[in-house]
């Protein structure tokens, strides 16, 4: 009887340590599990369109943004309300680790939108709007909008998030000279079309 109990205890401990080891191998960084995932999802696909997807995002871009939240240089309303606090105590190695983790996740699937708005958005993405001095998005963000280094991935991004960011560039709530110049003449309809196309990718 005693022996049976002992075997059971030892067996249980072995099983638990094996499980714990298995868990460690595939586990995301602790901070991702406990904090980031609450809004951005455990695999970087966000739980609400209020928050951006981070899956497959450019790691350089993620690092730059986290540092900009930390030093408060990115100051759009949601950055202030949510990310200033979240990023306040992040160390550089933690930022690198989080960025690498989310960058390595498979991208979010595109979300459906109206055929006409997607077509109009695609045209802006590929050709820009010469009459309004709007350059094509793809010249920096890539023809598949997958981003490149400091230029973020836009494909599959949450549509309301994209719209809000363009509005923030225009109002300078999110300070970015290049994006302000590129976006300042966009109409609300054009912003909506661009966001529809990009989020559908």
């Amino acid at each position, binding site marked *: 009887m005693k022996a049976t109990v002992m075997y059971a205890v030892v067996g249980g401990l072995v099983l638990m340590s*094996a*499980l714990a080891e*298995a*868990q460690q191998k*595939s*586990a995301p960084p602790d901070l991702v*599990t*406990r*904090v980031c*995932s*609450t*809004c951005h999802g*455990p695999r970087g696909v966000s*739980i*609400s*369109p*209020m928050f951006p997807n981070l899956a497959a995002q450019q790691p350089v871009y993620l690092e730059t943004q986290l540092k900009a939240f930390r030093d408060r240089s990115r100051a759009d*309303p949601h950055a*202030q*309300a*949510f990310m*200033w*606090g*979240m990023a*306040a*105590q992040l160390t550089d190695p933690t930022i690198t680790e989080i960025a690498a983790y989310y960058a390595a996740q498979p991208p979010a699937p595109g979300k459906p939108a109206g055929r006409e708005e997607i077509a109009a958005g695609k045209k802006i993405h590929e050709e820009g709007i010469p009459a309004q001095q709007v350059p094509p998005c793809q010249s920096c963000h890539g023809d598949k909008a997958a981003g490149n280094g400091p230029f973020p991935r836009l494909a599959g991004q949450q549509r*309301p998030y994209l719209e809000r960011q363009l509005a923030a560039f225009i109002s300078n709530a999110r300070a970015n000279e290049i994006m302000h110049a590129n976006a300042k003449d966009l109409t609300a309809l054009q912003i909506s079309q661009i966001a529809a196309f990009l989020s559908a990718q």
Partner: protein
Amino acid sequence: MRIKGFAIAMLVPVVSILIALAAAPPFAPRPASATPGFARQTGISCQACHTVFPELTPFGRKFKLNAYVFTNVKQIQATDEQSQRTLSLSDLPPVSVQLQGSNTTLGRGIPDAGVEGDLSQRNSTQFPQALSLFYTGKISDNLGAFLQLTWNPSTNAVGIDNSDLRFANHFSFDSIGVPDFIYGISLNNNPTSQDVWNSIPAWGYPFIFSNVGVPPVTKALLDGQLAQESVGLSAYLWLFEHLYVEAGAYRSAQTSFTNTTTGGPGPLDSTSPLQRISGPAAPYWRVAWEQDWDNHALSFGTYGLSARVHPPGIGESGPTNTFTDVALDAQYQYITDAHIFTAATTWIHEFRKFNNVGLADRAHDWLDTARLTGTYFFKRKIGGSAQFFSTTGSRDFTLYCSPSTFETAPSPACPGAGTGTPSQLLGSANGKPTTQGATFEIDYLPWLNTKIGLQYTAYAKFNGRSHNYDGFGRNASENNLLYVYIWTAF
């Protein structure tokens, strides 16, 4: 001398009702879950955790399930030789203050033997209605607390309000397909206060209400009757980002004639409306499912408690009754920057088994409580709520006809098996607990941590009837309340 004695005799019932009103759980100031202490600790603005305080967003629920430990304040730390952390304490304590002030106007004044006709006061201004001090946040790596001390004007004493000491951690069994989950333990003093949805009593609507209105003759045990008068330990799991499972047990907190903390009547005081849990503990359970998509969050669940209780004023060796609450709830939230809409509902069915003769007409009674609330806010600035509430139950003259000795006029005897006379104002002349009506509220928030509200509660039925419910000619609508308040936390 005789005149003085008469005046004192007249004062007694008035004072006793004031005490009863002050001590009755529905009149205890309702604490808030919104605390700037959390904002201080996390560096995150209110709207991350709250739609409009104190209602929680999905992120706020997660923060609570994680034992309030997420922090961005510099930590004082210690580690042992194995690099295990032995201390992680916030540099600055996450403390905050809450202040509530209000004015209440009753449909008709509370009858007062010392005042002719209806000249008694129907207006009551309270500043503060309640003043609280919070410690809310991290204690150590996996341990956090929500502790509240409240000053109560009716007793002029500082007492323990809602308290929740909580441990939580994460684990996963990826190898067998169980992703990261949270497990935790909560030690708290109010069943349902540990919950993360705003559809069930402790954190349900109305979040703030008048403490000088007329209380309905009865309410379910889980509907605040054990608040701050019990201690519970419960364990919970948050699985697959959807499923919440909790099991716990509650015991009564105090066994005395005086509540040593508040100075008010204790569970054994015959004037106390409080009931004391008998035996080792009363089991509590909770299961809920949450589904979030886009800007929507939907949850539904069940909760309940089964307790053997000593009736008010009866000691530990006395007879017990068995109350079992079985409840359902649901909540829907639509959350964007511009528009926030919430619908919440709950239904509590209480089985009441009276194990001794004389405390009730029958051995078995029942009580149903239902609430449906809708809330809308525009840009977290201006909004309003509407709630429809209903309490119904079996007729019981003993329980409901003369729950108190408050009387200012001679009255007919209670009919049926009841003894004594109907209670003026507080009793139910027809022996029914039916109380139904609606509460409407409009709110303005000049800042995220300050709410100014105008609330109107209208009763269609009160303690069984619309007209002459107490047998003394008082109508349900005369208990209607207009309540204006300011509520801020900083």
